[in-house]
């Protein structure tokens, strides 16, 4: 479990973030600060804007108002800023989004080789280490289509880690998985959290939130309803909406 280093500057700062899809106001005045090595789990009903929010952090979505500052870089239209921030942030998707035409190894080494310009030997070595870390070193030469969902998602995590990011974003990483494969992915994520990675996780896995998260955030209708430590959040929720949400899913 990540230790909170409150002495540090927050690594992610969101101030009054607003976003619209056309006329639809999807994020409303979001304010959130994430400390280095902190694990934040975002929960909430579907359509509440939680995925949109974390996609704003590496600018897969653009926010229209407010400020998002990641590792002292403010997200703006400046292409260089976006590139710099994206290389700091790893992202794992619900649908894995592995590149089906590349082998597992090539999936992992692609970005280090062409974005970081690492030598092939170094990136291969790193990739094999990462595959070992996520527990599937023997799958390096296979294609994603030959792997199970859980294995694919672990490759996706390894792929994100290969860029040696400071922050990892997880967008419902276990939602597309069969029940017996969820655990293998959560175990990898837990190990990652223990190693001190800053993580923002959108998830419906309450067990994971309770065990691994430093803080839990509830989103509803585009705004943050409640933030708290897992103990506080699950045992003693303050807000009526939180109580209702928890009563529905627990």
């Amino acid at each position, binding site marked *: 479990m990540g230790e909170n280093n409150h002495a540090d500057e927050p690594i992610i700062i969101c101030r009054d973030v607003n976003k619209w899809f056309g006329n639809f106001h999807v994020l409303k005045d979001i304010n959130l600060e994430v400390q280095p090595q902190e694990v934040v789990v975002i929960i909430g009903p579907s359509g509440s804007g939680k995925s949109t929010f974390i996609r704003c952090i*590496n600018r*897969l979505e653009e926010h229209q108002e407010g400020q998002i500052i990641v590792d002292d870089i403010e997200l703006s239209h400046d292409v260089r800023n976006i*590139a710099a921030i*994206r*290389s700091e*942030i*790893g*992202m794992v*998707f619900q*649908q*894995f*989004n*592995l*590149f*089906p*035409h*590349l*082998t597992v190894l090539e999936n992992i080494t*692609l*970005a280090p080789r*062409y*974005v970081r310009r690492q030598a092939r030997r170094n990136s291969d070595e790193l990739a094999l280490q990462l595959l070992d870390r996520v527990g599937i070193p023997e799958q390096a030469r296979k*294609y*994603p*289509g*030959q792997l*199970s*969902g859980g294995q*694919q998602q672990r490759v*996706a995590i390894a*792929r*994100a880690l290969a*860029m040696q990011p400071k922050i990892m974003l997880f967008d419902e990483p276990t939602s597309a998985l*069969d029940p017996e494969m969820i655990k293998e992915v959560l175990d990898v994520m837990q190990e990652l959290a223990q190693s001190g990675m800053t993580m923002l996780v959108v998830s419906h896995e309450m067990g994971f939130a309770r065990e691994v998260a430093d803080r839990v955030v509830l989103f509803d209708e585009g705004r943050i309803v409640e933030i708290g430590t897992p103990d506080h959040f699950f045992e003693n929720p303050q807000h009526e909406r939180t109580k209702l949400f928890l009563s529905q899913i627990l």
Partner: protein
Amino acid sequence: MRREHSDTHFYVAPLEAPPSRRPPITTVGPLGWMRTNLFSNRMNSVTTVVMAGLAVWFLWSFITWSIESAQWAVVYNNLRLITSGMYDRKEIWRMELVTAILVFLTGLGLGIWSQIARRVFIAILLTLIVLLVVPIFGQRIPEPTIYSLVEPQKAPSNFVFIGLEDDEVTVTLDPLTDLDDTGLHYVGYIESRSRAEWSTQSRAATTGELDLSDYNLTGVVRIVDQAGNAVITPDGPVEMAFTSDPQTSTVTFTLPQDGWYIVEVVRDDEANGGRDNNLGYSWLTIDGVELFSSQEEPTQRREEEYGSPPAIEHALFAEEKAYRFDGTRTFGEFISLQISPFFNRIILSVIVGSAIFFNGWLIGSLGKRERTIRRSTLIGWALALPAVVIILRGFDGSRLLPLVSTAQWGGLLLTMLLTVVGITASFPLGVALALGRRSKLPVIKWTCTLFIETIRGVPLITILFMAKLIVPFFWSALSDLDLTIRMMIGVTLFSAAYLAENVRGGLQIVPHGQIEAARALGLNPFLTTTFIVLPQALRAVIPAIVGQFISLFKDTSLVAVVGLFELVGIVDAIVSGQPIYRPYQREAYIFIAIVYFIISFAMSDVSRRLETSGAGSLRKQQ
């Protein structure tokens, strides 16, 4: 990979699994295959029988025709024209060099990247052996001879031909008779060397097995020179009487000088009591005149040298009178007269080509793991096209490689050149247009769309005519450009527009998640397109792209219309420019149809292999 969770049922498994049994005989093997695929129900059975019957009938008529009466001499006597057009004879070694280079590179590439099965290897060896053995049984077939029909009730035809001094000319007169009393089937044979060509019926006519009592045609054949003087040999004037006697008469003589000669046919109706309705026909044939290797020397140039042909009544240019004989011949005669000469022509090239191919293949398969060999093969292929063009074209004033202008390129060479240039140039252009059409910048987007839709809205033939006639009018710099190159540009632009739409289809099926994942990894748009989007998009549309290339290959035949002699154009020129081959258009066009088919089939086979190879077969949309 997604497992279904079945509901729990109360079920107790037996202690031992039942032994697996063979499936019923009617469900597997050839019998099972036929049952499921050909005779699964009454309708299918009927269809199968009808279609099989049609196929057998069609194949049977085609095969019997091609064995019994097709005359393939038009193909192998013009092989050089068909392969390289008017390419300079003296420079033909460059064609051979280029072919050798490409064959070697193909062998190398296949050796490195393809798992050529042993059976393919054996098949090639067997083919080689056949190619080696067949010519032994063969003989060289002569060029077709000139022949004409002396018919009753018509004014006799006189031949006009050009002969060179010391040419030995044989004139043969063959009596013909009417086997069928209704009187319209000619039988006979041309001359002794081609006797085997002719039907058993015609032999019956000449061996006297037929009743020739009705036959009553008499007259005389004379050879005179341009001034009208009879050609005199030591035995007297060259003259030959024809009568009802069904024996062949032949006269052989040597020409005294270069120039025009006339073969006069004088029918003697007086001898028949003034009747001009005698029954019977006679073939008149002339052999030994070099006239008909006309591909070597155009008629025009001959006329410049020997003057205009003499004007005589009822004159026929020997070349213009050519009848097609549709007799029958045996299979043995087919092999020795039709197949062997063809193999005789190509055997050397095939042997040398195979040796080069296997050399490359051997080097490739032995050096599969060597990075230098793989790299040099790739570099070799990359340099191949420009190298081929440079070698074939040469330079103005060079002694080793004198210029052979592209106007002289023709036949299969031109077809392949247009195709390869079209493919290699239109592929990047098409991809660029497809990406441009999806661009967010309106100027680029609308330019690309306008280009694509304009080209797609116009037939290829129009574009070719524009390239030939209209574009140089607007832009004078282009009028100096060679027609061949203008056609290349036209074909390329046309193909690129269609290709762009195919590629765009592929781009649309790449899921957005792929692009997001690439962006999230920090890949810039260029890297994302190059490594993530295009490989997936192109792989998805391989069949469409290859289909596009195959139709590009076939569409190159349209340049014949604007006056280039590619495969179709050259065959057109052969059968219309060399009258002796005019009756053999069928054979000529069937031959190039086979050439087109083999190349198209090879292309689609490559496409099938690409689709199923490597990552292509494992493609999975999540």
